[in-house]
């Protein structure tokens, strides 16, 4: 009978709909678990790199500003001697520098000059130069909330990519090298 089969369909629906909703919820939660909440999308992507002028770490009387890098694809790497994850990342930067993959400028973030220079002596210096951001003011302008962070800036001075946390060799292969190739093309 039509009424009976309709009732059966309703009954089936009663079980299927909550189950389906539960399933969808599980999928969303599972996706959420795979995401790193520390990786906050940066509002700087495809925006001009904020201007600044800072004293260089190794030459206190000389200054650096991002304008000096116009016409080059370069990386601004935020680091500090107190930053533990920076030690993890450092060999990768050294390797990139040795291979001449890209110009790396350091932003020495909230660090003492003596500590920073000593740290570079110990761990190697992959940087073209480091700008010395003692009070973290430039860090705030770049939305830095934890070293290491790395910005890839194109020839026009526009930020094209931001990496939060240490760069791994896989990140270089999979993300950075293709990006540099594209930006240099």
């Amino acid at each position, binding site marked *: 009978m039509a009424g009976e089969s309709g009732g059966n369909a309703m009954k089936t629906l009663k079980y299927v709909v909550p189950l389906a909703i539960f399933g969808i919820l599980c999928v969303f939660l599972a996706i959420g678990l795979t995401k790193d909440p520390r990786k906050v*999308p940066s*509002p700087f992507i495809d925006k001009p790199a904020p201007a600044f002028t800072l004293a260089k770490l190794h030459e206190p009387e000389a200054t650096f500003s991002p304008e000096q890098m116009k016409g080059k694809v370069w990386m601004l790497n935020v680091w500090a001697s107190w930053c533990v994850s920076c030690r993890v990342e450092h060999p990768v930067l050294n390797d990139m520098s040795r291979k001449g993959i890209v110009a790396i400028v350091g932003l020495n973030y*909230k660090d003492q000059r003596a500590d920073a220079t000593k740290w570079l002596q110990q761990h190697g210096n992959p940087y073209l130069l480091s700008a010395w951001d003692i009070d973290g003011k430039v860090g705030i302008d770049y939305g830095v*909330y*934890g070293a290491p962070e790395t910005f890839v800036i194109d020839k026009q001075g526009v930020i094209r990519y931001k990496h939060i946390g240490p760069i791994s060799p896989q990140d270089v292969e999979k993300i950075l090298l293709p990006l540099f190739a594209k930006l240099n093309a």
Partner: protein
Amino acid sequence: MKKVLATLFLAASAGAWAQSTEIANPDPKVEARLKVIAHELRCLVCQNQTIADSDAPLAVDLRQQTRKMIAEGRSDDEIRSYMVERYGDFVLYKPPFNAATAFLWVAPGLLIVGGLAGLALMIRRRRDAMAAAAPAPAPDPARRKEIEALLAGDEDAKRG
């Protein structure tokens, strides 16, 4: 309960202590405004705390920056957009309404409307089903007479 209260007091006093020693001569007017704004801004280092609650160096820096901007006479909106420009919408504890957050804001309303509509539909269906299942009894003349007689007898009994 006592333990919970004690923890709460401790947490509250720890936060107050952290900020009261932060600068040498706090201006009460600036501090009062800072307190309001800082409670709306997320500390990105310890993400579930506001920059008012957190002792992370970044929170200290951002409080300092906020103090400076208040002293410069900037409005709350200016300070908020300064933070959003640098840290994104995530820095706001109350997310703004835009394409990315529209679903977040609209979903509760949709759920309520959908739920009420579903409920109304269900009630109506159930009422119709009950009406269909229990038709009004057909008048039966013999039975009716019997009842009337009974009622009449009852009346007599009352009188008697």
